[in-house]
């Protein structure tokens, strides 16, 4: 792994009121321009770690550095994709996608133009004036992704983005995500509990152990993706090895 780290966690710990320890001494380096996955069973604190990186939750101990600066809140170089989509139900797709820019004070014409381009990229062009309740789960998450892309952040943080969409949509979405990111210099940090999803998407997989969450292993699947179709990737030896290796580690956490 030659790429420099864009996100670094140093001794991050998180305890909640009442003494529940969610994370313990997590130190990590996430490389620029790569897709890293935080993978672990439920209750391992992976979403907490992602939200600490996002600056949405303050860590109890340790610190997070992003692009050489210590995190003390959300920043323009990070954009978040939410598990429950977090779309404004009273706003149409166009306004939802442009919402990050709206908050930043970008003039309406300019932000709508950027939003239209992102909506086209996620394949929702004919739905610009639809409302979230008129869209399927998969389409809503595309809106969430387009909103994150519209603010042009270097780092996209995705919190189990496909967990509330059905399996077919999920696979299609994974392929599109890889496609979309191939042409962009984005760093993606992705939280999931799906082993296949992690192995399929990631350049680097961080395995977390549960209660309290701590780094258990870091795996680099090293799958050759360019020029290959999804089915070839899913039959790749490195892909299958990665899935197996992860399972060998994770199964000891399953009670």
């Amino acid at each position, binding site marked *: 792994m030659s790429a420099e780290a864009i996100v670094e966690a140093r001794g991050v710990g998180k305890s909640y009121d009442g003494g529940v320890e969610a994370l313990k001494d997590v130190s990590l380096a996430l490389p620029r321009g790569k897709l890293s996955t935080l993978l672990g069973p439920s209750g391992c604190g992976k979403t907490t770690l992602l939200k600490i990186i996002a600056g949405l939750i303050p860590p109890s101990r340790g610190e997070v550095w992003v692009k050489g600066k210590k995190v003390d809140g959300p920043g323009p170089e990070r954009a978040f994709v939410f598990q429950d989509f*977090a779309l404004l139900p009273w706003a149409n797709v166009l306004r939802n996608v442009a919402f990050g820019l709206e*908050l930043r004070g970008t003039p309406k014409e300019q932000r709508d133009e950027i939003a239209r381009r992102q909506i086209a990229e996620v394949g929702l062009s004919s739905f610009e004036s639809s409302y979230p309740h008129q869209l399927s789960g998969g389409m809503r998450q595309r809106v969430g992704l387009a909103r994150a892309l519209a603010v042009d952040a270097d780092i996209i943080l995705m919190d189990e983005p496909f967990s509330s969409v059905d399996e077919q949509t999920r696979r299609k979405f994974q392929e599109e995500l890889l496609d979309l990111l191939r042409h962009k210099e984005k760093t993606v940090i992705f939280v999931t509990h799906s082993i296949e999803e992690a192995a399929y998407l990631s350049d680097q997989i961080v395995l977390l152990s549960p209660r309290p969450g701590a780094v258990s292993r870091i795996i680099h699947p090293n799958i050759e993706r360019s020029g290959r179709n999804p089915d070839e990737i899913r039959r790749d030896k490195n892909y299958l090895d990665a899935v197996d290796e992860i399972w060998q580690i994770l199964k000891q956490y399953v009670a």
Partner: protein
Amino acid sequence: MERKNLIATRRAWQLISFVFFFGLWELAGRWPISLAFPPFSTTVLALLRMTADGSLLKAYLSTLQPLVIGIVLCGIAGIGFGIGMGLSRSIEWFSLPIFIILQAAPMAAIIPLITYIYGIGLASKVLAVVVLAAPVIVMNSYKGIRNTNPSLIQMCRAFLGTRRQEVIKIILPHAGALIFAGLRLGLAMGFIGIVIAELMITPTGIGDLITYHSSVADYPEMFAAIASIIVLAALTIHALERLERKLFPPEVRGS
């Protein structure tokens, strides 16, 4: 076609319901169950007479004035206060117990007290409306603010929204429907307040019509006055309910 049929059937049943109710009233009046209980037809004739001689109009001008003033006052101060309670912990802790008690208390009981303090003028009638309408208006506004989807607030923060933007672009639009519903319920309480005030405090307006005609044993006129205020209140509240559904359709409310 199917839908049209359904609507026609519904209309028919609703019409039958009215005919049945008024028919029973007519029968009961003609029986008669009491000399003080006029049949429906006589009451309608009395209503027409009172409309023609202008006494009904005069009464309503005097009744609606304090009602409108009271509801507007509650609308401005009550909604403002409820929003304040929803946004600020200190205001919430300070005032929540008061409003919980006010909402549970039979407020009509303190209306005679108002007379002691404010006499029998317009101020007393306005106060009677305010006392009954304010708790539900304040509580609804407060709950509307408090029920904001936390995920949307987190989204706003992740995309660098300020607290001000969070309030204006997320919390208030989210609370709009509940606040409006509070106004509607407040108006319903206001109708009760104004009638009690006019029966107990100041013999003016519609309350005076009821008392006067009852004292001279003009029972059809008395029932006409009672029926007219019921119909007015029911129609107003129903119209507001329709407006509410138009302004805040359930699917874009977002709760």
